[in-house]
Every structure is written in structure tokens, then in C-alpha cells.
């Protein structure tokens, strides 16, 4: 049989957090290295 599964699209978790003004705090709590990424290019690779 060939079966068609409709997929639904919903706002991503990131969008929800951003809309609630919580994204930065969430990333700080769960992804502190995100902040260091901004300057990663200032260091030699590796």
C-alpha cells in the first residue's frame, strides 16, 4: 500500500520561547556554550 501521512507544522520551541521573551534565559540555563559561540571565530580553529 502507499500511505499518505499529513504532517502538521507548529511553531517551534525556539519560536515559542522567543515570543515569550524566555529564549535567552532558556539557552543560558541549558546551553551556556551558546554564548561563547559568538566569539568562537576569534580563536584558532580547534
Amino acid at each position, binding site marked *: *500500500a*502507499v*500511505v*499518505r*501521512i*499529513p*504532517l*502538521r*507544522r*507548529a*511553531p*517551534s*520551541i*525556539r*519560536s*515559542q*520561547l*522567543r*515570543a515569550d521573551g524566555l*529564549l*535567552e534565559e*532558556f*539557552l543560558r540555563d*541549558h*546551553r551556556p556554550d*551558546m*554564548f561563547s*559561540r*559568538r566569539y*568562537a*571565530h576569534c580563536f584558532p*580553529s580547534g
Partner: protein
Amino acid sequence: TPSLRLGRSSERIYNFMDAQYYADIRLGTPEQNFSVIFDTGSADLWVPSSYCVSQACASHRRFMAFDSSTFHHDGRMFGIHYGSGHLLGVMARDTLKVGGLTILNQEFGESVYEPGSTFVLAKFDGVLGMGYPALAEILGNPVFDNMLAQKTVDEPVFSFYLSRRTSGGNPEGELMLGGTDESMYIAPIHWIPVTAKGYWQIKLDSVAVQGVSSFCPRGCQAIVDTGTSLITGPSHDIFNLQQLIGATPTNIGEFLIDCARLSSLPHVTFVLGGKEYTLTAEQYVRKEMLGDREMCFSGFQSVDILSPEGPLWILGDVFLTEFYSVFDRGQDRVGLAPA
């Protein structure tokens, strides 16, 4: 001891932060409904268990094994390692229904602990992996392999159409099991052989910005991943690419682009199987409304994943909303065509 194997990179759990496409499946008898991401970047099926103790489970549907007459207890533990911890659970077997298809004795995981709080906000309850068995953490056959073994599909093929339109588009997305939907793409489909049977990994010939071959001059590897939303690549390359498209970093690792300049930004071309797949700025930029302000984010992200065949790029939803994708287990190849 849990049958633990390292999952993907620590990016894994956070990539679900951007996941947007999901659909319902039914497990057990009588049927219990769950919404899952159909993820070509993993190969396990897991849903929250009624025994789950995490905050994330409280806000999602949980599988009640004791309610299912077709439930088979397995009891072995499984773990999927994410950056911030382990998703832990217990293996089980039961009848799975996907669309009109019924798969008997499908192995799956009942999660009893979900790390971090990402899943708390998730619109989906669990994940249904569609990668090769080699990628599975849970012992037993992945779902599509069981579909093939139980001959529930005509062709050993499945395909994805993902719409760019926000909710209300019709359809927002479509997974076709056992074939392709010719109304969803502009033929012909171009085929690229799989280079390693774990992810849906293929060779990426080169990446060019505004026609100038800028990255992967000697070729690298890419995985076609419906569970990842952005296009990711090695940090060094992505940093340069962000500069070329005029994206500036924010303090939380995202890259912003001036929405007013989209029409003047360069297009990015991925060469796969000798064919060019080009994304314009309108296509690789993600727009979000913040209050009454529209913000434009780069659809490219740094993810450093090494594979024996070299650094991996990930072609996620940003790419897959433009190109219909066909996954062929019969001939171990990926097909792409303009959606």
C-alpha cells in the same frame, strides 16, 4: 545495564528546539494516540511512559502499557544520550498504526526520564526515527524496517514534502510511505547514492555562494535530516558563510539578517550528485514575528559532527521545504526534486 550507545552530537536535543513537523501514530490495543516527529536522523521510536517522572512527561500523552492487550513486556532499559543528559526508558513491543498501516510487534521505547526541559514545550510527544538500523539505540527493527519485513508497503521507499507556509497552508507537510506523491514535486527526481548506511548520508560535491565555490571544494558529506530544521555545517565554514550572506551574530549564537536586504543577498548552491540545488535568501532565511516586528534569522547553523568520511553537513527543513526528498531503502539512495 541499559543498552546505551552514544546518540548524535550534543546538538541533538536542541535541534528539536526548531522541529516543526509532526503527525499522529497509534500504539497498543485499544489504540493510544501520540504525536511524533518523523525523523530521518535517528532510528528509534519512543514515546513517554505512564511511569515517566520528568516534568516533560506531565505535559504530554503517556503510554499506558497495562491498558494494552497487545503489549509485550521487554524490560530492557535503553538510553539515548543527549547533550544535557540521557533520555532513559524501558523497551517494549506492541502494535503500531501509522496512517492506515498496521505494524505488529513493533519495538519501541517508553521514556521514563526526559532530560532538560526542552521537551516540556514540545508540540510532539515522541520521535519516530526513519534512519538505518545501524543508527538505532533501541534493539530490534526500526519502524520502516518492520514495514518492509511485514510487507505493509509496496515499495521500500518513503518521501517527504514539507511546506514553507506557516499554519493554514494545505497541506503543511506530507510523509508518503511506500512511494512518492508526483503532485508534490517537479520531475525528474535526481538520485544520489547513500555513502554510509546509518543516517541518510550522501556526498556533497561543493557549496557555492553566488556561484563562487566557497566550501567543500573537494567534496564532503551531508545527511538529509527531517529532524533538523536548519542547514548546518562545520563551524569554520558556517562562520564564513554567515559573513558572505551578511548575517551578524547575536549574543545567543543566532545570526540575524536585515530583512530589508533579502533581495540583494547572494544565493547559496549545494551541488549534489553533480546537480545544483540553489536556495535564495528568501528561502534560506527564517522570518519570525516578534510583536509587530519581523525578524530575519539565518537558516545556517554551526554544528561540528565528524564522520569517518569527513565533516558532516546537515540538510534540514530549510533545504527540505524547497526540495521534495525521497528515501529509497531498496537501492540505498536519496532522491531530490524541486518541491
